[in-house]
């Protein structure tokens, strides 16, 4: 019996025990990251590049993260390498480069730009120490040569928790962890700049949005939005607010996770607006940065699994939002609190769409793979040049007693990272 089939049976049994009708499902293809079964997470780091390659940053706590790509033209997965080695830090007994934790970006030169991040932080007991994490590296992968260029450490001792690349100004932007500084690397000049603090360590904004003029936007405070203008090299705090849900009394997740920012945004070239979801209740909103001096934010709906609509216990929003070529937003909503090994338990993700033309939200159903396995959760999404939607997340597997064939455990079961592939024409 295959690993995924076992879990399909368990899922069916669970449904039967609850006396609930068979759920609506949506089928996605998947590809494992060959040879990298022990990778335990992926956050934001997914880029479907113009040449059909899909770049993924795989995280490994306490070990090396990896840069990989899936070549959609040849259906092959390629491991570019371990991040500590690519950073020139192998054998130095430093905290490893465990993640690419932020978005990639494709430059006008065809290179893929990104920055690295640390894994374990040990309650910051090793921050700025000899054995601690040395700091994030800014890097570029050149698909023509297959080589990575290391631009060196940017923020010292800190990782790039959140990031984005702007091809217009040829810069890698980032927000650091833990100190929440807005930083950037100017590829042309080599300048590494720290603009100062924006967030607290437990609420570093998870997505920087860049418009087509090269302005960079982030979320801070209690739903605030700021704008960085590369022309003036300055940050301005705007008066508009993300529609966050005020929680009142602190219970459960409130203590652990900030719910005061947007979780992710995507830029729509056509309307020249951002579309995003907030952290707390997956509220969908639009942000038009060109409407008036401070822009305009509009609440459009809610993108969580409809079972949670208007409830208090909406699972924390994922980073899995992308805009399809069909003018639909695609969002992979967690079925339970999802954060890989720190998830609340097994539940299927739902694929939710929002049609920008009609304003209609639709739940396409539980995300399942062809052999019946469920997509437990995802935390990145992107749209390929041909309109294919990609996610990276976790799929259930049966542990192999002879070798580690999984990245971690969720709800007593084992999971492995996978690239999920969805073709919107199937909607």
């Amino acid at each position: 019996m295959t690993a995924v089939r076992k879990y399909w049976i368990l899922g069916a049994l669970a449904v039967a025990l609850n006396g609930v009708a068979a759920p609506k499902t949506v089928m996605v293809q998947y590809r494992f990251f060959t040879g990298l079964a022990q990778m335990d997470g992926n956050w934001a780091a997914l880029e479907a590049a113009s040449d059909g390659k899909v770049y993924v940053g795989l995280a490994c706590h306490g070990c090396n993260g990896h840069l990989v790509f899936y070549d959609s033209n040849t259906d092959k997965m390629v491991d570019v390498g371990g991040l500590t080695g690519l950073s020139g830090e192998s054998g130095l007994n430093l905290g490893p480069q465990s993640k690419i934790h932020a978005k990639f970006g494709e430059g006008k030169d065809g290179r893929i730009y990104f920055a690295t991040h640390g894994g374990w932080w040990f309650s910051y007991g090793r921050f700025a120490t000899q054995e601690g994490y040395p700091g994030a590296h800014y890097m570029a992968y050149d698909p023509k040569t297959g080589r990575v260029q290391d631009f060196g450490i940017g923020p010292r001792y800190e990782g790039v928790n959140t990031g984005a690349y702007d091809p217009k100004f040829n810069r890698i932007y980032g927000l650091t962890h833990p100190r929440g500084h807005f930083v950037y690397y100017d590829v042309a000049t080599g300048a590494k700049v720290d603009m100062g603090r924006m967030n607290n360590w437990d609420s570093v904004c998870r997505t920087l949005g860049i418009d087509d003029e090269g302005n960079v936007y982030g979320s801070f405070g209690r739903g605030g939005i700021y704008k960085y203008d590369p022309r003036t090299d300055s940050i301005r705090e705007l008066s508009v607010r993300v529609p966050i849900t005020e929680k009142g009394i602190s219970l459960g997740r409130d203590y652990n996770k900030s719910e005061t920012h947007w979780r992710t945004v995507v830029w729509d070239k056509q309307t020249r607006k951002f579309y995003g979801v907030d952290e707390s209740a997956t509220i969908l909103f639009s942000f038009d940065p060109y409407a008036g001096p401070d822009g305009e934010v509009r609440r459009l709906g809610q993108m969580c699994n409809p079972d949670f609509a208007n409830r208090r216990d909406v699972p924390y929003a994922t980073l899995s939002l992308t805009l399809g070529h069909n003018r639909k937003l695609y969002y992979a909503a967690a079925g339970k609190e999802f954060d890989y090994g720190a998830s609340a338990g097994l539940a299927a993700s739902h694929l939710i769409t929002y049609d920008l033309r009609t304003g209609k939200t639709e739940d396409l159903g539980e995300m399942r793979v062809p052999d019946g396995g469920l997509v437990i959760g995802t935390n990145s999404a992107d749209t390929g040049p041909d309109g294919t939607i990609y996610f990276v997340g976790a799929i259930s597997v049966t542990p192999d007693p002879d070798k580690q064939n999984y990245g971690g455990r969720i709800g007593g079961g084992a999971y492995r990272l996978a690239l999920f592939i969805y073709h919107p024409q199937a909607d």
Partner: protein
Amino acid sequence: MKFQVLALLAVALLRGAPAYGQRPPGYDKVVVLQTRIDARDLGYAPVDVIPDGESGITSLTVAPNGNLYGATSGKRSHLFVLIPRHGYVQPLGVIPGATAVTHAVAVSASGDVYIGTSPEGHLLKYTPQDEDHQAIQIGKPLPVTDLGQAVAGERICALTISGNAVYGLTAPNAHFFEYSLHAGKFTDLGVVASEIPLGEKFEKDKMMSRMLVADGQGSVFASGENGAFFRVRVGFEKLEELEIHAPAVPGREPWTRVDAFLLDPSGVIYGGTSDGYLFRLDPEKLTVTNLGKPLNQYRIVGLVHGPGGKLYGVGGDEQEMARLFSYDPSTGAYDVLGFVDVNRRPYYTWQAYVIGAMASDASGTVYIGEDERISKLYLFYPWP
């Protein structure tokens, strides 16, 4: 049997595991005890606050009447007051011509507030007037009397009052100046550092203390090049280089500064260095005792008195994460109290990584000023 196992598994799967998050409750073990610390926005949030980018607190001092005065650095400098009876921060205005005020707010016995500015290097006098009834108006200029530029071409980087004079240090050339409150006249008493120590290309500063301190007799102390102490004695308008030095690992003396000074009621002076050593200076015997390092970090950015004769300080440089510690002179024991963090979820949570100034008042409240793009004032209430 197989069905039963599967059913149990299914139930377990449905129940799930406890949620884990970015801030686990265990993090509270590495921060200051949460019933002993709180934070204040610099004004009346969310609108009437000293703006981000202008809010780095780099000067704090307690006036004779118990009010706390502070100044910020950034795009503009602001003066603020916290009247303990009220407990909130009241911005008083933008300090003219200043983008930084670093350990350069001093209050005279009469209550006048003296401010040493950077980059213009002017000494300003602010006279508090009915602050209780002034509306907060962010951006209004602080009404001051400009007493002039202390040393031509120099910015003021530290200030204290002793007797009838204001004393200051300037940068970049490390002048020690005096301003006579009676005569209204500046006197340049000389320099505490004449050369930039040999270092890397990015090291461009002459080494001098980041604070000044007056002892019980009114003599004013600073540190200068090679960590040497300098003094201006009461009644002598003369700068002396003393034979005593701030503690340093041999070989690191050229880059040693005194970060913080504190006059103890016993008459001795405590201080902390850029390498993170605490020391005791006896101003009569002119001896220095190295008390060791409270933290595995650089710098002691502030040092104040607390109840029971203990000292409280914060260590950590601008690239680290600041930690609060205490020192008990009666036992010589240090306690590491943790990160300067306030967790009042769901209302607010904020951790200070860089501290710019500290002060304490007669009631034992310790004020800790954060020096970052977004900064808050922390109130720490030590226990006996």
